[in-house]
């Protein structure tokens, strides 16, 4: 086992898109399973988690429609962009402290929120200078046992 000083375990890539149809078509053609679409009112986006037996998970994120969302300006310039890396951590606070101790500049991008896509688990976003945006889900996925629903199970 390699040294993991931050206690972060990779969970998914966050892919922001204007419209999810092409991203779903692309990922499904690679063998991904696309979860049901979830609207997250706190993050003000629509989400679907795409899972694959051999490839990393991809969270497709797109604006909910008429209402403004935090990714609006980003997707004006890029039709699709992997814009965050998501990890799980038993203690996001300890992870952030460890990142700071490693000499990296990190700033909290938002207050922590309950994520609809992850069963209401607490998520928080941070920006690491020269790395980018990271999301941290609190907890150990081994204890969750409840990946997001298959299409049609949840809306």
């Amino acid at each position, binding site marked *: 086992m390699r040294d993991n000083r931050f206690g972060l375990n990779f969970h998914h890539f966050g892919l922001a898109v204007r419209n999810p149809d092409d991203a779903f078509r692309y990922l499904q053609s690679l063998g991904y399973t696309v979860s049901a679409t979830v609207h997250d009112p706190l993050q003000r986006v629509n989400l679907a988690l795409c899972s694959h037996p051999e490839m990393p998970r991809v969270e497709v994120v797109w604006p909910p429609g008429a209402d403004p969302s935090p990714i609006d300006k*980003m997707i004006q310039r890029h039709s699709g962009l992997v814009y965050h890396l998501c990890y799980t951590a038993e203690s996001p606070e300890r992870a952030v402290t460890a990142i700071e101790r490693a000499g990296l500049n990190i700033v909290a*991008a938002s207050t922590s929120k309950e994520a609809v896509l992850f069963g209401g688990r607490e998520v*928080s976003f941070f920006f690491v200078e020269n790395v980018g945006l990271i999301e941290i889900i609190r907890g150990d996925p081994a204890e969750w046992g409840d990946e997001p629903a298959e299409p049609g199970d949840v809306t």
Partner: protein
Amino acid sequence: MIDTTDIYEKLSVIFRDVFEDETLIAKPSLTADDIAGWDSLTNLRLVLTVQKAFGVKFTAHEITSLNNVGELATLVQAKT
């Protein structure tokens, strides 16, 4: 406490660097709507650069509550 004029001068330098536009002038009414490249990711890079330049630290709540450059300058002044 740093003088307001000094804050805006320093912020102007930061804005020109972050948004790669030598014509930018930081003024109180300036918002993300006024600059094409000011998206949520660039905003965080801007905040980190401001923190480093002024030797201050913002909370997540403070960052998400900012509406314009005037509020950013006021926050910087309160923390220096």
